[in-house]
């Protein structure tokens, strides 16, 4: 069940340049069903800004009823979110959407988690749950530059982790796709810029690939039709999926990206 709740901020810190990690406490945590779901946040009480902001859940804890998000301070909304301090309350609608399925993976499989920039966060809970299940995970995390890198250590604890930066200022110079070529695996879970997702979908049509998409949203719950994408098997027709309520995670080949 989706809930709307004033959640208490437990912690907020800048973990990389303009990248914030925010942990909140709320009853709605108990409703989370899978890694890769997201929440829709009203960052201020008034009309400025008007709309909620969709942010992925990067990890959660049923016992503490807490969830953590990682976001980039960018426009008006996320900048205001970054101003909030522990003890304050923030209006959250969630959990929303359908996350990554971990059921289709068998123990012994090797799974590649590929994240680009601010697409990295939802992979973290996924990684935790896969490792707990006994699955081998390899992480490939791409960033623009050294100052934007975050959570490398956290991922390292779960398995092999490659970090790339576009400018080569940290880790491997280049794109995640460069690293992927060198690796062996059964299945891919990925989240990041559309260009990256498209490349992965094309290059690994033989593999099982799960992609998490982004789209501008209105309602976040499936009512406004802001976030639709076409189904791949009907590119000129009227079939569609909604990123907010059918996704954000889709199987490669399901929708046009």
């Amino acid at each position, binding site marked *: 069940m989706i809930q709307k709740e004033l959640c208490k901020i437990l912690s907020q810190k800048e973990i990389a340049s303009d990248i914030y990690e925010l942990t909140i406490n709320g009853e709605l945590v108990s409703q989370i069903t899978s890694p890769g779901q997201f929440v829709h946040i009203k960052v201020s009480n008034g009309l400025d800004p*008007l709309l909620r902001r969709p942010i992925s859940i990067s990890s959660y804890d049923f016992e503490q009823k807490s969830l953590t998000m990682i976001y980039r301070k960018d426009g008006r909304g996320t900048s205001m979110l970054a101003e909030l301090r522990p003890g304050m309350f923030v209006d959250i609608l969630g959990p929303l959407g359908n996350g990554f399925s971990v059921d289709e993976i068998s123990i012994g499989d090797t799974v590649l988690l590929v994240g680009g920039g601010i697409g990295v966060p939802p992979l973290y809970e996924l990684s935790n749950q896969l490792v707990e299940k006994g699955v081998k995970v390899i992480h490939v995390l791409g960033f623009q530059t050294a100052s934007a890198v975050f959570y490398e250590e956290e991922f390292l604890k779960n398995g092999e982790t490659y970090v790339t930066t576009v400018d080569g200022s940290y880790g491997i110079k280049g794109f995640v796709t460069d690293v992927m070529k060198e690796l062996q695996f059964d299945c891919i879970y990925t989240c990041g810029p559309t260009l990256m997702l498209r490349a992965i979908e094309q290059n690994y049509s033989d593999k099982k690939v799960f992609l998490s998409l982004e789209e501008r949203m*209105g309602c976040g719950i*499936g009512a406004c039709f802001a976030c639709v994408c076409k189904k791949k098997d009907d590119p000129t027709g009227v079939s569609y999926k909604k990123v907010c309520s059918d996704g954000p995670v889709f199987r490669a080949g399901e929708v046009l990206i």
Partner: protein
Amino acid sequence: MNRLSIELPGLNLKNPIMPASGCFGFGREYSQFYDLSVLGAIMIKATTVEPRFGNATPRVAETSAGMLNAIGLQNPGLKKVLSEELPFLSQYDVPIIANVAGSLEEDYVEVAREISKAPNVHALELNISCPNVKTGGIAFGTIPEIAKQLTRKVKEVSEVPVYVKLSPNVTNIVEMAKAVEAGGADGLTMINTLIGMRLDLKTGKPILANRTGGLSGPAIKPVAIRMIHEVSQAVEIPIIGMGGVETAGDVIEYFYAGASAVAVGTANFVDPFVCPTIIEELPELLEKLGFEHISECTGRSWKENGQLAYNRA
């Protein structure tokens, strides 16, 4: 006593609050949050003869105290609305106002004829004002004679009262209102969105794939209030007002302007509970302002006193 009951052509409303078309889908999503039977009515998403995919994404962009949308009338088409969406809604004790759209006069007429037969559709809302589709829509909404004729044609086939949704993107809204009244409209709904645009600072290009979109939300409320204030003094048919309604106070302001019921659009996205919350808060606010019944508020901005004949249940 029910302080909120309102009777309008075709509509016996337990309260005058209803979600606006396009902002509530066909109710399924919001039925997760509350019992839709608490609503006065539901204005369902625009329905066209054929299924439509709508515009490319991005389809929404935020603005100061508002948002732009260019959904492009995406909808599953008349057949599916009749066979799936309306039956789903029939489990709730709530009248449906069906938003009717199209590209050609014939399209409107066909949707109107068929959808008005559905048992839970108690009124039609003729969407002659959608700014986000290339053909039809906007032309019907800006030329009085064309609007009048379309209204007449739809009235001929509809089995329920017909409300016409006016576009604010005109020089003379009163002229449009009078034209559709002369065409036989049983009521008006206003306003649809203002045409607007936002550009991306980084790319220099429009944020919306459709370039322009419809501006909704609190930003447009003063424009809507002004138009309803003018139109309600010039026509004899009732008005369902909309544009930026977020609170019980906003509802009263619309009634003062001349509305007899109010629709809530964008605010549902911000707070899915906004409609039931407003419905709950209205009686207390009426009490505080000294009204026995919400109908006493209609047109107070321009009337000395007294009520409109048609809007007290």
